[in-house]
């Protein structure tokens, strides 16, 4: 299992470097082992340099920078070991418009290998999804879920899917 850990770590590291640069439109992200000569106990550190800035401690990143860096890490794990189901609950909330667009681009790509459910209030993310689940409380305190699909073109073509 030591070898498996080492190979997986290297694979996730490579992916993280690529995905970080894609999500941030530049810069550098990498992961490192805290105890490289003890693979059974070692921890994993994250080090990032945001484009246009010098390398700093993770705690100094802004709210949006943290959310984006964390997303890059999660996507890199998914790349190495896809999950049949991925759920993001308002992960895009701290992101500005430009970063949401990059996030959506990467999510769409991963959406081909896994089933994504993305809870969001952000119009850009909503518009990027072919299917919506409208969640409402038509009766007070009781949740109902109403699926909509896009038929040709954008929102105008959303139809209520009967008896999903």
């Amino acid at each position: 299992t030591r070898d498996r850990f080492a190979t997986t770590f290297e694979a996730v590291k490579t992916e993280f470097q690529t995905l970080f640069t894609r999500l941030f439109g530049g810069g550098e992200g990498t992961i490192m082992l805290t105890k490289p000569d003890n693979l059974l106990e070692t921890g994993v550190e994250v080090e990032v340099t945001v484009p246009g800035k010098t390398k700093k401690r993770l705690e100094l990143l802004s709210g949006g920078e943290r959310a984006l860096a964390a997303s890059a890490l999660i996507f890199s794990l998914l790349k190495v070991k896809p999950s049949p189901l991925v759920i993001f609950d308002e992960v895009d909330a701290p992101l500005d418009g430009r970063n949401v667009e990059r996030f959506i681009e990467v999510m769409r790509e991963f959406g081909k290998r896994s089933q994504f459910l993305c809870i969001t209030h952000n119009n850009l993310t909503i518009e990027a999804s072919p299917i919506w689940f409208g969640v409402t409380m038509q009766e007070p305190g009781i949740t109902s879920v109403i699926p909509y699909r896009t038929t040709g073109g954008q929102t105008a073509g959303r139809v209520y899917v009967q008896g999903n």
Partner: protein
Amino acid sequence: LRLKRVRIVGFKTFAEKTEFDLDGELVAIVGPNGCGKSNIVDAILWGLGEPKPRNLRAANATEVIFAGSQNRKAHSYAEVMLLFDNEDGSLPVDTPEVSITRRVHRNGDSEYFLNKQACRQKDIFDVLADSGLGKAGYAIVGQKEIDAALAASAEDRRAWIDEAA
């Protein structure tokens, strides 16, 4: 392996039987504050066997059962069924479809079913162990939890690499 259908009844705000299909496309879940979006995530996590009420925003095991509303009485049990497409055989079960069902009663009794046959929680964990839906769960990010990936300790982050191995 793919999650095809989710059925929820009596879990949190799902007093009515709620069922939806998933066909692999990206789904945006939208709706006003407090309408039950995060409760869907809790239902799926619970259905996958999440043992700690704390991770489901519940004080104890039975607080996930519908507690009543202005017009309805509390329910006596909560149930979630998850139906997987197992054509590729990645779940160690011999059927092209695999259903996992979890139920909890007001008295705290729990029941688990694998393809409608009663089983133990441990059996569910064994079936899901290598599927990517295992315990470390980097793939399910709850509300306000995105920060946790960076705020986590170096040891906690290591568990994700183990999970992906």
